[in-house]
């Protein structure tokens, strides 16, 4: 119990590094997985399509907190496997990111006209080359704005990692608020930091969108 001081500012900004690290981890592992999911969802094999769809549905329908809880606390208790906090949080956020980005990118892939696949096929280009050189670049352009939009959600979503002991921005806010008994000042500050962190991405996403419209 003490008053709000410089150390509290410092601890809030220091906590930012975990927010950033969690986002980087989630994207680093989640994005490749998302690509696999998206490709699986447009695959010719119905079995693969359904499996991928089911995986995505399940992850999207469970609270992220549940995933975090399961991998960190549940694995040791049920399976006897001790999982370091960093591994647990990485796995949970990877699945979360993959499920949402996978759906976004699938939308992008499906938005590219079927005729583009056909045009590639008629030139005797292999299916992978059609995907790699003709479909994927166009799909990426279409999905970039929602992808950046998701990034903002992810930044805000990292706050849940506090349950595994990661003192990221939101958790640091709680700790400072508890020590100083000034929740309103603290949370306003936390909100401002989030806003400053997220706004550039939102604006970027918007300008991408505008450019996309212009080229059509």
């Amino acid at each position, binding site marked *: *119990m*003490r008053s709000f*001081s410089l*150390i509290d500012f*410092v*601890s809030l900004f220091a906590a930012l590094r975990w927010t950033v690290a969690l986002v980087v981890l989630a994207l680093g592992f989640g994005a490749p997985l998302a690509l696999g999911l998206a490709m699986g969802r447009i695959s010719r094999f119905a079995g693969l399509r359904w499996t991928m769809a089911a995986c995505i549905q399940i992850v999207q329908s469970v609270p992220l907190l549940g995933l975090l*809880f399961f991998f*960190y*606390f*549940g694995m*040791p*208790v049920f*399976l*006897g*496997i*001790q999982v370091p906090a960093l591994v647990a949080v990485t796995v949970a956020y990877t699945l979360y990111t993959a499920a949402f980005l996978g759906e976004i990118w699938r939308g992008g892939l499906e938005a590219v006209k079927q005729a583009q696949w056909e045009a590639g096929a008629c030139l005797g280009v292999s299916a992978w080359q059609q995907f790699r050189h003709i479909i994927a670049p166009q799909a990426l352009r279409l999905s970039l704005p929602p992808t950046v939009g998701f990034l903002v959600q992810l930044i805000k979503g990292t706050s849940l990692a*506090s*349950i*595994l*002991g990661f*003192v990221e921005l939101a*958790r640091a806010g*709680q*700790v*400072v*608020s*508890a*020590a100083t*008994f000034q*929740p*309103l000042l603290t949370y306003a500050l936390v909100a401002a930091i989030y806003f400053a962190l997220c706004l550039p991405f939102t604006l970027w996403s918007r300008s991408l969108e505008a450019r996309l419209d212009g080229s059509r």
Partner: protein
Amino acid sequence: MRQLKSLFAIAATALAVIAAPNLAHADKLQDVLGSGKLRVGLLTDAAPWGFKDDKGEIAGLDADLAKLIAADMGVKLELVPVTGAARIPSLLSDKIDILIAGLGATPERAQQVMFSQPYAVVNLGVYGAKSIPAAGGKKPDNLDGRSVAVAKGSTLDVWLTDNAPKVKLVRFEDTPAALAAYLAGQADTFAENSAIALKVQDQNPTKEVELKFLIRQSPAHVGVRQGEQNLLNWINTDIFFNKLNGKLGALQLKWFKEEQTLPTL
């Protein structure tokens, strides 16, 4: 062929080591003594039990007790900050050895964790404006129909839920939120311990913070995983020892500004 077999044996052993439920240790006390390190889980958002001081260090009565226990045990101390929702899972999944988080003991909770002898005690009460009348008897009938802000899951929450059905309980995630609700006028009263009530009055001289109902004394206990009887015994002994030599009383005075009158479990 023989090489292949031994390779397989090594792999199988490695898998067994990884997969072995290493929670089923024979004796946590020996483990801690053997590893030379005691992992103590504690809250960092529950002043004056546990919080970050103005140097950014973990401080509070719980942190001091953790230091005391580790020193008596002769092992290094590792403080593991946990959140309210994670404290019990952290203990059950062996992320920490013991939990010092101002835990209050109830029969229901004791089915899941084992409680030590109490190490501190606070007076719990409901605080509010002067205009609210004082309680008539042993029941908080003066609060009937009024709203009480309380930290979710605290001993106060449990007691009021069971004993004051006509009170409108509003449960918040933590103490600061409950206090903020009272200060914002979202609740008529708040329930907390006397040390915090004093602090609130200090910081908000314009707000009326008067004791409206004294609930009871609330002892705090150390939490240990089910079955770790040896560790629990040792901790009980240590608490008893520090009670006699006055160190626990000093901690109470330091953080709650009041004399300690410890009951026993």
